[in-house]
């Protein structure tokens, strides 16, 4: 994309500094110079990589396995188990591909991590590369992330100069390299096989699995794909040991994670939380609760693909199991909060437009169903709907779900409709049948 001018400074950090009870990832965030190699090394940066390079790769995989770390990209799969899927080296190339295509609506934590501590991310990537016996890592970063791209590129250049990247990092006979690749605006690239297609310079349409990327990934070679936050957590685990890490979180969902909290709250930000704290803590304490005179109405606990929950469920905890029991999911940690001035039919419409627009067009239910749902909700919003449209909408959302497509994008569109209609049936009813919107009165009163 040509030469970039110097980036203006990032906005003031909005996050958990001084507020969270536990800082594993964000401990030094906000320190001046943390983004430079020198600054990062002041806090023991790359000592963990040096230690890891002297260990057995399998011991590293086992350590991550016993830490219970789960992927932070959205699916929540056990990271160590994924590392273990990589077949034994056969002498040919194998890759670590880093998913920095953060595009799930409401999610900004990977950007926050990169902008604060790019070297922490790179150290995690290099440890992972050695653990799965890869020499080449690729960072696939979304094209809109100009500043994070620049910061990672600068950090990689520093590592090359310091010979931490190159043929003999820390004198060990194990060549390591990291390359960057920029996306070009497609949500679907967050899906791992679509990302690989895009990395290979093609239209980003998901592949059918098997074969899984561990067997046939980038350029048909064994490939490990992990999210930025997942890899940024790895140095802490290897440095302090899995036994320390499992002291945080719940039994099935260990550690801390970063939640990006946005919407109708007083102090939006990216907050590091111990997994298992309730959303009341996140929304009412960390994020400062609703605006003066307003009430929280609903929240999406893990990005727009996580089913919306009513405010009465803010007692649910942040671990994957509790959220699944509440019929939602932990997802990517993007918590969006809406207050009582929000019309749930409007939010449904906006999110459906997103899923319809971002559908890659490969699978029919998602390509056709997404747009059909958009048209149906548009009709209801315009006051031209009827009870039949509600029934139709219900059938469309069911048709989008349950693995009818190669990836989860179609399911997510179905969940948007299903959860909103399930928790806020009266709002859909009044729009479709009585052609009114009670929220408009709340809004009028709020602005009066």
């Amino acid at each position, binding site marked *: *994309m*040509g030469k*970039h*001018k110097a*980036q*203006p400074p990032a*906005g003031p950090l*909005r*996050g958990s500094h001084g507020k969270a009870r536990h800082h594993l990832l964000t401990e030094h965030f906000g320190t001046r110079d943390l983004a430079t190699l020198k600054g990062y090394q002041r806090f023991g940066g790359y000592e963990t990589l040096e230690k890891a390079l002297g260990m057995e790769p399998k011991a590293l995989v086992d350590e991550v396995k016993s830490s219970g770390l789960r992927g932070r990209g959205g699916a929540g799969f056990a990271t160590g188990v994924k590392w273990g899927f990589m077949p034994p080296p056969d002498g040919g190339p194998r890759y670590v591909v880093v998913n920095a295509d*953060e*595009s*799930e*609506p*409401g*999610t*900004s934590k*990977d*950007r*926050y991590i990169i902008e604060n501590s790019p070297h922490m991310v790179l150290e995690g990537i290099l440890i992972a590369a050695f653990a799965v016996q890869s020499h080449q890592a690729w960072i696939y970063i*979304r*094209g*809109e*992330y*100009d*500043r994070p791209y620049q910061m990672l590129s600068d950090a990689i250049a520093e590592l090359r100069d310091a010979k931490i990247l190159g043929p003999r990092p820390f004198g060990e006979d194990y060549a390591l390299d990291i390359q960057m690749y*920029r*996306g*070009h*605006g*497609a*949500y679907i690239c967050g899906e791992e096989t679509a990302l690989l297609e*895009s990395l290979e*310079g*093609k*239209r*980003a349409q998901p592949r059918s699995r098997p074969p899984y990327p561990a067997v046939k990934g980038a350029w048909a070679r064994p490939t490990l794909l992990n999210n930025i936050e997942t890899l940024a957590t790895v140095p802490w685990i290897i440095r302090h040991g899995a036994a320390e890490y499992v002291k945080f979180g719940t039994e099935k969902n260990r550690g801390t994670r970063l939640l*990006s*909290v*946005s*919407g*109708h709250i007083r102090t*939006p*930000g*990216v907050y590091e939380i111990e997994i298992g704290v309730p959303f009341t803590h996140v929304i009412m304490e960390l994020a400062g609760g609703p605006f003066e005179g307003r009430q929280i109405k609903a929240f*999406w606990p893990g990005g*727009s693909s996580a089913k919306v929950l009513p405010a009465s469920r803010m007692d649910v905890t942040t671990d994957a199991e509790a959220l699944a029991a509440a019929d939602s999911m932990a997802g990517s940690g*993007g918590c*969006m*909060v*809406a207050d009582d001035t*929000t019309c749930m039919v409007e*939010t449904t419409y*906006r*999110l459906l437009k*997103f899923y319809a*627009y*971002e559908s*890659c067009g490969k699978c029919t239910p998602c390509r056709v169903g997404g747009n059909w749902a958009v048209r149906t909700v548009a009709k209801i919003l315009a006051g031209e709907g009827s009870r039949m449209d509600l029934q139709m909408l219900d059938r469309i959302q069911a048709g989008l779900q349950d693995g009818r497509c190669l990836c989860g994008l179609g399911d997510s569109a179905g969940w948007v409709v299903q959860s909103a209609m399930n928790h806020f049936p009266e709002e859909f009813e009044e729009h479709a049948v009585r052609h009114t919107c009670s929220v408009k009165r709340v809004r009028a009163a709020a602005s009066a």
Partner: protein
Amino acid sequence: MPALDIAQEEVGYLTPEAMTEVAHALNLDPGYVEGVATFYSLFHLEPVGKHRLYMCTNLACMLRGAYDMLAHANQAIGVSESGEVSADGLFSTEEVECLGACEYAPMMRLDHAFHYDLTAEKIDALIGERRG
């Protein structure tokens, strides 16, 4: 895709000729190159303004007034809807999906940088600076 970037940087948007040239340079079928270009939203197939305001209107920004900001920006550059280029050729707006800076909503990307906590005044100032 990096080759298409170079072409787009040069012409401003991807003309059929530019895509054909990229295809020849890389020994690819022009139809294949066009297929890739049309898939990604950051490749422009129509003329765009010199300064593009990529305005996020997805949920987190929408909840904090993104649609008012979009309407204001369109009015400020003198177009009736997103996609049109201002009469002086300097500006165009584009409604985009979540840009991953939700704690600073509403926000936009302009000239390879993010601009946070948008207000009508901030948008006016950013546009004014670029008019010179």
